[in-house]
């Protein structure tokens, strides 16, 4: 399982499911300057950048991945911005590369190999703007994801299983997500079940729980629900977590509760590591603005 080679003829699907409810405009605990929605949008943009760069072969971007970004809050639907990608459920990575909302120019510092630093120009694309409005229609959003997966799996029954990375800061406002979550986890390709990972972030100063193998330390029913609709991390994802210095155990689920900003970064890095690809540590590359 989870060993199918990802190629242009046999691509995989990655769905980023993002809570855009009103509470996402609150800051993280202990960091009143950073709104959760702003930080999540930044991480999503860096994640898309990383996925594009992985698929870049000189001047060509190969369609190894098809990307969906589903936002839910006042509405449920594609969170891609701009006229060419908005309203699109699933976008081949080459089109993601070609149609960002904007490309920002900046500089980043890199080691010069002689103990110093040099600044080099970089361009950072933006696909997703922060959004925080409305309630938390998690079930409706998961149903949209399921419909996208149903269509994908009909056409790609043998590929590396799709990955769904769900980020939320609160409880569902439209019912219990357990049923549709389990439905998603029951979908599969010949190479294994769909991977559904959940990252819960919090404005409260509570201790975070990352990648547990059982639900014994979880504080409440909502946390246990998210745990039970989180897939166990396959071996290659466990290896990626180890490379990032994240502690896991055999049977660890792709689940974070009460996560902080660093949890979000690691969640996306681990969740997009797929077939043993080395996680791209974009936090090491954060730019010094021009």
């Amino acid at each position, binding site marked *: 399982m989870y060993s199918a080679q990802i190629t242009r003829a046999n691509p995989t699907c990655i769905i980023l499911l993002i809570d855009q409810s009103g509470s996402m405009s609150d800051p993280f605990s202990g960091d009143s300057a950073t709104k959760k929605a702003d930080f999540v949008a930044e991480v999503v943009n860096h994640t898309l950048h990383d996925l594009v760069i992985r698929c*870049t072969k*000189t*001047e060509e971007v190969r369609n190894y991945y098809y990307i969906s970004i589903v936002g839910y809050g006042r509405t449920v639907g594609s969170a891609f911005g701009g006229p060419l990608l908005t309203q699109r459920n699933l976008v081949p990575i080459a089109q993601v590369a070609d149609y960002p909302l904007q490309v920002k120019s900046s500089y980043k510092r890199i080691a010069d190999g002689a103990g110093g630093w040099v600044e080099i120009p970089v361009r950072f694309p933006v696909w997703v703007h922060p959004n925080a409005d409305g309630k938390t229609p998690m079930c409706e959003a998961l149903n949209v994801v399921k419909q996208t997966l149903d269509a994908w799996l009909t056409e790609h029954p043998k590929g590396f299983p799709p990955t769904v990375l769900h980020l939320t800061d609160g409880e569902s406002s439209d019912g219990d997500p357990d049923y549709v979550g389990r439905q998603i986890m029951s979908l599969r390709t010949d190479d294994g079940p769909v991977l559904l990972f959940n990252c819960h972030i919090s404005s409260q100063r509570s201790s975070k729980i990352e990648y547990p193998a059982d639900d014994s330390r979880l504080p409440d029913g909502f946390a246990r629900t998210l745990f039970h609709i989180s897939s166990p991390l396959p071996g290659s994802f466990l290896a990626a977590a180890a490379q990032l210095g994240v502690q896991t155990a055999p049977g660890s689920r792709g689940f974070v509760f009460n996560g902080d900003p660093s949890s979000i970064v690691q969640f996306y890095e681990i969740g997009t590591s797929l077939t043993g690809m080395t996680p791209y540590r974009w936090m090491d590359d954060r730019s010094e603005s021009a």
Partner: protein
Amino acid sequence: MMSSKPTYIALKARRFLTPKHEHAAEECEDAIGINFAAHRFAVADGATEAFDAGNWSRRLVQNWSAADGLLNRSDFWSFIETEARAINELWKQQQLSWYSENKQQIGSFAAFVGVELEFAANNPQWNAIALGDSCLIHCRGNAVLKAFPLSESLSFGNSPILAPTSAERNFQASNNIVTASGQLMAGDELFLFSDAISAWFLMLSEQNDEETMTNFKRVLDDDDDAAVAQFIEDERSSGRLKNDDVAIIRLMF
């Protein structure tokens, strides 16, 4: 098939290069360099996720084969630095999209193994240098006398240290350059392989699968690249050979 008759031991060389399954030939990122007159042979394997990996690996094998020496760590690292500066200059002349520009800043990486044969003395020998997981395998019959720099099929991972185009930022790679040498006898064979076919060949040796090894050599005996390609495809389909580019140089004495 090329042949020459150096001092007293005959040499035949056979090369074969093929891309990953369902990839076009121009997408192959493995490369072969042969300078038959100087008895210098090299294989490089451009990292799949790197920028312009095919050109980087081709540049390394072509220019190393055409040069003299470069068989000690210091000289070889200087060679990599020189080639890295040259390919970076070429890249700077191009107008690139944002993604190509960002990818180019990460640079390119390639595994490399090169060998020079020495026939002048009474004891013919090979001298090799390597960085990464492309391998030289010295065989006598179906016995593996030496496999270098990796010697076990399970040693092939996904993150070997490779020859970088950003050499100034990856100086630690120079610590991973290794050299080796060996004595040659009539009937010996040297193989230069990229990583997937190296791991596969060593697995055959570890499993004492002489039948497959003999079949492999037999299919290489003929000048029929289509037959070799079919053999490779069959082994990929069986799951024993990873779907990766394949570069082979076979030197028969």
